[in-house]
């Protein structure tokens, strides 16, 4: 039984005083790993000299990336909430969620296109009220779509092993991605009749990225306050960050303070017990999917407004990033998803600036893998027995 005693020793040494030799060993280990990371990380953009020079040359870039990271983080957080809500209630990684987000982008591009006119430089421009109104159809569509997916693809599998539902979700993701691809075909209708002129925004090539109509202008708001400021804060930054905060506050209020929210939490905690006290469990799960989908729809709109284009493969890459955020924060935990989203947004923004854009996805996945290995419950998650 030597292993047991060794384990016990290791445990006690962790909690109380660590012998100096072991301390030294641990320190040496950390130094060796850091050294190795600094060597291996270099092809992936971890070039300390260049980073140092970059920071000295453009110190304001740090603030700039902070703003970009916050805005993108807000979008990621909104999508991550959908993952976390669904996981919290039925313990399913809703793989199709990212593609719901992508379709939200497509719905918003079409809504905006109806109200837009050709601007001075030939591009489409839409009025601001259209952008704000445009959130509604995107949220409604994505909410209903997500609830529909749950009804068709997940509800029949609720008693099946967990991975059966996960594979079904992967299948759903492929179906939605194909829908996103085929929506592009309708761009060709624009030439058929002037009635469909608004579909021209989808372009001639199904797979090509679709450009959003310009809505928010590109003025630097900070310049009105501090003339000659090097940091740019555009209206898009403000709109995205404010919308994200408002929607997340609304969600928090809904889940924490309303009767329905309470019922949802009860269902997440114990489905059978919730059913016994008269909660319609199926309705609650459907509602959760609806809310998650609606948030993804809003996030799709925000993504389009902020980054200018949407493409049908967006769901996979953005979805994986959001899922990483949800896991980082502690999956199933609403505030964790918000925190994780902002952290991933900041990480990606700083990686884009200081490491290398081409390696950003690798860094994000590396973080995901590391978090899962060392803290499988995430930053704010609690130990929940058999989940990890």
């Amino acid at each position: 039984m030597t292993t047991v005693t060794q384990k016990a020793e290791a445990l006690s040494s962790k909690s109380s005083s660590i012998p100096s030799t072991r301390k030294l060993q641990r320190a040496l280990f950390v130094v060796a790993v850091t050294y190795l990371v600094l060597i291996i990380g270099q092809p992936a953009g971890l070039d300390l000299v260049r980073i140092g020079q970059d920071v000295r040359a453009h110190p304001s870039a740090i603030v700039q990336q902070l703003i970009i990271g916050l805005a993108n983080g807000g979008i990621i957080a909104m999508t991550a909430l959908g993952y976390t809500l669904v996981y919290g209630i039925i313990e399913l990684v809703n793989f199709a969620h990212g593609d719901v987000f992508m379709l939200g982008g497509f719905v918003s591009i079409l809504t905006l296109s109806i109200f837009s006119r050709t601007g001075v430089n030939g591009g489409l421009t839409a009025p601001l009220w259209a952008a704000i109104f445009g959130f509604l159809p995107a949220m409604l569509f994505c909410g209903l779509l997500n609830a529909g997916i749950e009804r068709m693809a997940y509800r029949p599998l609720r008693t099946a092993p967990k991975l059966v539902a996960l594979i079904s979700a992967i299948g759903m993701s492929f179906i939605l991605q194909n829908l996103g691809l085929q929506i592009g075909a309708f761009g060709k209708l624009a030439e058929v009749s002037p009635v469909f002129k608004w579909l021209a925004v989808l372009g001639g090539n199904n797979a090509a990225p679709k450009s959003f109509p310009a809505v928010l202008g590109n003025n630097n708001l900070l310049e009105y306050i501090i003339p000659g400021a090097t940091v740019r804060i555009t209206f898009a930054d403000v709109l995205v960050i404010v919308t994200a905060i408002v929607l997340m506050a609304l969600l928090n209020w809904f889940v924490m303070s309303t009767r329905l929210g309470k019922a949802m939490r009860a269902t997440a905690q114990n489905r059978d017990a919730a059913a016994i006290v008269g909660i319609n469990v199926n309705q609650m799960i459907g509602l959760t999917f609806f809310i998650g989908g609606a948030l993804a729809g809003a996030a799709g709109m925000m993504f389009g407004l902020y980054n200018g284009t949407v493409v049908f493969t967006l769901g996979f890459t953005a979805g994986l990033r959001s899922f990483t955020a949800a896991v980082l924060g502690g999956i199933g935990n609403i505030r964790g998803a918000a925190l994780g989203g902002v952290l991933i947004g900041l990480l990606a923004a700083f990686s884009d600036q200081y490491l290398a854009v081409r390696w950003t996805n690798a860094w994000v996945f590396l973080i995901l893998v590391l978090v899962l290995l060392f803290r499988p419950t995430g930053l704010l998650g609690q130990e929940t027995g058999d989940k990890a």
Partner: protein
Amino acid sequence: MKQKILANAEIAAIVLIGFIALITGGWSVLILTVVAGALVGAAAPPNRAGVLRALIVGALTALIIVAVTFLHNAYITQLPKQDAIPVGALQPTTYGLALLLGIVVAVLVAALRAHPNKQRGRTGLLILVLFFAVIFPFFEQSVQLFWANAVIVSMIFTLQALGLNIVAGYAGLLDLGYVAFFAIGGYTIAFLNSPQFNLNVSFWLIIWIAAAAAALFGFILGAPVIPLRGDYLAIVTLGFGEIVPIVFKNLEAVKIHEPVTAIFAALFNKPEWVRCLVGCTEPVNITNGTQGITPIGRPELFGVKFMTGQYIPWYFLILAMLLLSVFFISRLRSSRIGRAWVAMREDELAATSMGVNIVRTKLTAFILGAMFSGFAGAFYGSYVSFISPDAFDFSISVIVLCMVILGGTGSITGVILGGLIIKMSDLLFLDKFQTVLGGVLQATIFQSVKSQAMTNFLESLFNASQYKLLLFGLILVLMMRFRPQGLVPSASEDAIT
């Protein structure tokens, strides 16, 4: 209750094969009747009545296929935009031969299955399968069917599916980043036998190195994820599968400094302090980025040179690799470690308490699973003579997983069937379907549509090759809904739990 003559599944299979025959037409009738005959024989109960039944159902099925092929050759080839009529137009004797072959195969398979000596019956079945596998490429070439490439690629994917079946099927570990090992195998041969590093190691050695490299990475991935379970494991492996192609895509200009000097140089802004370790004069180009590596060397055996466009040697090589793998995997499955995999899949706690070493069992599953993908990757690299990171995206992981699930997780026969069905329908059927659909639309709707713009729209909307993803997605969703155990389920149920 009246006994139904045909089971629902049989009717569905006959309709499906009939539909395929309607789309492909031409000489494929001979292959389709043989395949249908084999399926009918395999579905019949293994007894004397089953043989009789196979005779009747086989005759019916073959008749349907022949009739439908006749329809195709007579009418569909007349539609606009169709391929040229097959070489050496089919004679009535060809149809007769197809009919006969279908019935004979059905009866033979049923009879061998009903053979009182089980061992002999299985040997007979194996010989029958091998016989058709051996004559297929010669038949294919003589009638110019142009199926060889698709069949070889399908067999490469089937080899991968067999490997994934170890991880996901036997051990029950859902690996969503399986493409990483395929990429590692492919890049191994690209590094060792191409102008990239001016190396020219023999192919016969490289496939083992590639398998070893993939196995090593299987270990590297497997070791840290041992404590993870279920969907967390799936997500971590997915992350691994994403990182590996990114690494191959971006290692084109590597320059490495000594870190300690770099830290001081960065702190004091003195770039001249940095000591350089690798790629000092010129950054090292390891993977040639998105352009990929080409040309990759080809194997040579007993004076036979493997060349592009000459499919027969490639076909037999991959066939041999596939047969060897099937042999190894079926032996592994019934060995001590194979039984440990299944025990672990069914109940990890119970397996541990029965003395199964979980760490070792999981690791061997990852290592052996990765190895077969490494083989497949090396063969693929040599076969297409070109490796680029775009060939290794997430969709490959999912397609291979689809093969395992469609066929039946944990069942070798099922996985081979699933692999061949999915990849061949992807490469052969969908394109042909697209041509036929285009022709039908041209002859019906498009003729009445006057405006060119409308035609453009309809053509783009009904482009069948654009619906591959939808098809895979539907397969996954519907299989999970109605038959989660796959087409040919393994003896022990609930492979993935």
